[in-house]
């Protein structure tokens, strides 16, 4: 699969964010969205990818950006995971049909039925401005995300001059 690249319109989705609430990309229009695909809840390390993003939400908020995690885990699994890690951002369940959104973004792993560790920064108009696929064993951190948010802001400032 090939990961969708910058300049592409981000495929729409509407997935369960809690056991009874759905979240669509369209609802987030007007502000940047960080879409973080990860292989699975409950990876056995303490500073895992979602815990890290949780810790730096205030940095993302400086750009008015909404962090959204997404994996093929079901909504109940996400609920337990989010509670355990005290996550303050939504986790989407790409569960039924399994991995459909990951496939649309080009980040599904057929060999093990999960998604890649892949990051997308989407602008307020729904266009991908940055994407990155990390080796699945390497948590990509947040430096690339913040760089992308910064350059997006800088470009916008130029346009409005």
């Amino acid at each position, binding site marked *: 699969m090939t990961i969708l690249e910058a300049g592409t319109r981000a495929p729409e989705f509407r997935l369960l964010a809690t056991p009874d609430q759905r979240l669509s990309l369209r609802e987030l229009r007007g502000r940047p969205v960080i879409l973080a695909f990860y292989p699975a809840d409950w990876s056995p*390390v*303490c*500073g*895992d*990818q979602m*815990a*890290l993003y*949780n*810790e*730096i939400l205030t*940095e993302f908020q400086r750009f008015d950006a909404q962090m959204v995690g997404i994996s093929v885990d079901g909504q109940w699994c996400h609920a337990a995971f989010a509670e355990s*890690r*005290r996550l303050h951002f939504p986790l989407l369940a790409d569960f039924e049909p399994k991995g459909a959104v990951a496939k649309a973004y080009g980040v599904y792993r057929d060999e093990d039925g999960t998604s890649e560790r892949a990051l997308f920064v989407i602008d307020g108009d729904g266009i991908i401005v*940055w994407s*990155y696929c990390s*080796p699945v064993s*390497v*948590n*990509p*951190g*947040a*430096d*690339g995300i*913040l*760089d*992308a948010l910064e*350059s997006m802001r800088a470009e916008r400032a130029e346009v409005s001059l």
Partner: protein
Amino acid sequence: MSHEQGVLRPDVGAEDHQHGSPDAPVTLVEYGDFQCPFCYRAHPIVMALQRQLGSQLRFVFRNFPITEIHPNALHAAEAAESVNANAGPDAYWKMHHAIFEHQQDSPDALDDTHLVQYAAASGADPVRVKLDLESGAFKEKVKADFLSGVRSGVNGTPTFFINGVRFDGNWTNKGEFGGAIAHAAGVVLTEA
């Protein structure tokens, strides 16, 4: 993008806690959390490398407290900073070792009472450290470390940088981790 990912920003500077010579061929930077059990495991590994590599290695520690899951990590980092400011770098390293050595003693091993005790044992004025914790005197310093880690691509704790480049291998594997550091130093590591 203008920056590569996983590259240390900013470079090691005067503000950093450094152990070893600035002229050493290898600088190992750890972003760590004093309450993280993985950092606890990494601590003796780093010390062993320091013994083995001697003057070839400079070790730098920056704070990366993951406070949502480690409620005492922020104060532990602030206490260590207070010790550094009040009693100097030698006391800082004593405090640094003391915190890790005691981390697993009990569930309250890193509460303020214990932190102040370790600070006193490290040679700092316990009252100053206690007041600094209460006033949050070093909160901003710790936060600055944390943000530099975020911009450097820290992806959990501990995260290591060898001469400014994130080490994505397995630090629990002595051969792999020590080998990467020794390679950067241009030496072959022998068993300690």
